[in-house]
């Protein structure tokens, strides 16, 4: 350990560069990890709600609406279809605006549209049903959750960014180790084993991974908690969002629970130490032959 600190003290700029690279990699990964977990939570929340809501023109009769409902049900692509009459729509409106009497005074059931809330069996059926309904006579507006279809895309972006970060880290670590080429060569000539040569580089990589992970986690959540009041107002009405299916372990992305923060910390430092270790292992391999 003392050798490690001595090496850091004597090559402060190289060490700082390595630490910053790991910090940015982990900070970026942390950002996308949380974003993905958050989106997953939001999507699960949205999925639990009707996926397609179709509002009818006020003059469309119940008979026509039921005919459209039956056609949609017969397609076999729906999981559930719920009819909301004009009267029920008024009740919902009144509930949502109970604190604003001015808005309540001006609204009656006649001017509110009846609607159908439809959930599909598969996400890919969403756009098909939405497109059909848009073309149907008597329909005023169709709303559907397009973002569900885009989940795979966001996961792909996350994986892609992590890979890019890893490659940047590998390249810079290789550059740093190239500066140690003479030391590696000398150690080989003195009879050092491959493990002896690698040990200081690996322990340095693990140490920087730990420090980079800790800094990235700390700074990320300092920024997060600083922005929380703003996010609170933006996400008003959204309840607790579980971390994937792990709500029974008290793991919540929003608002983040203590267990979630601890899990993310351990994942960050583990990932940091792993890429620090692997990066230095692969980079030293070039000079140890």
């Amino acid at each position, binding site marked *: 350990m003392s050798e490690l600190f001595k090496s850091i003290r*004597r090559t402060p700029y190289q060490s700082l560069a390595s630490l910053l690279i790991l910090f940015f990699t982990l900070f970026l990964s942390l950002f996308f990890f949380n974003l993905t977990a958050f989106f997953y939570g939001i999507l699960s929340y949205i999925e639990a709600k009707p996926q397609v809501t179709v509002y009818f023109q006020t003059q469309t009769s119940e008979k026509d609406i039921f005919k459209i409902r039956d056609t949609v049900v017969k397609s076999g692509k729906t999981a559930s279809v719920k009819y909301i009459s004009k009267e029920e729509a008024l009740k919902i409106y009144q509930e949502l605006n109970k604190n604003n009497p001015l808005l309540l005074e001006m609204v009656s059931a006649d001017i509110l549209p009846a609607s159908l809330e439809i959930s599909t069996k598969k996400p890919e059926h969403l756009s098909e049903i939405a497109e059909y309904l848009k073309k149907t006579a008597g329909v005023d507006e169709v709303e559907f959750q397009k973002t569900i279809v885009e989940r795979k895309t966001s996961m792909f972006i996350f994986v892609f960014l992590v890979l890019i970060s890893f490659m940047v880290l590998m390249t810079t670590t290789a550059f740093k180790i190239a500066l140690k080429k003479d*030391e590696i060569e*000398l150690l080989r*000539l*003195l*009879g050092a*084993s491959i493990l002896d040569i690698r040990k200081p580089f690996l322990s340095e990589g693990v140490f920087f991974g730990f420090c980079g992970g800790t800094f990235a986690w700390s700074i990320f959540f300092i920024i997060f908690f600083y922005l929380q009041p703003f996010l609170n107002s933006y996400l008003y009405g959204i309840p607790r969002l579980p971390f994937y299916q792990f709500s029974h372990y008290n793991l919540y992305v929003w608002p983040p629970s203590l267990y979630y923060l601890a899990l993310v910390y351990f994942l960050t430092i583990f990932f940091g130490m792993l890429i620090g270790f692997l990066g230095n292992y692969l980079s030293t391999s070039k000079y140890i032959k």
Partner: protein
Amino acid sequence: MIKFDNVTKKFPLGNLALDNISFEIDDNEFLFLVGPSGAGKTTVIKLIIREMLPSAGSIFVDSEDITDKNFRQIEILRRSMGVVFQDFKILPEKNVFENIALALTVTKISNRQIKQEVEQVLSLVGLADKKLMFPLQLSAGELQRVVIARAISGKRNIILADEPTGNLDPKTTWEIMKIFKKLEGKKTILIATHNVDVVNSFKKRVISLKNGRIAKDQRKGGYEI
């Protein structure tokens, strides 16, 4: 014992560094390897430490052929040898003590033993008061002594010195040679040099190389240009 048996070394571009040479060095023998630049002196040293392989022939160290050894065996072989490299190979970011200790850390001895051993060799080469200095703060002669101290530290019974007095003034040259003299009879010492005065004053065995061949091999020999 070191034995070269019909050793030839040809480099990939075709230049012949050693041409079918054979010789033997006994345990604790002190000898000079002389010859003009390009005669093959450095190649002989590099072959003994297995930094390179011969194109033909065999090299034996303690009766074992080192040309067919694996990495693990080469590591052990190198730990038994101390090398004074022509280009020093001193690490600028480590101080004198650490540069010497580096050679001992690979032998898996305790930190206390390393400290004792480093201080002992530093006294032997006259650098006990400079152990915390960095290479940039040392003169060429002092750097050379650090390299010698590193080479003789630990239980290394073969010392290979490649031009240990190159670029040094006569006074420093003699100081350096006195260090080797102190080790005479305790370790096998092979000094590659083209310093005529040094070789002639020691009256030890001299192997002369010329164009990759052994021109002369004389017990109590000298060096003529």
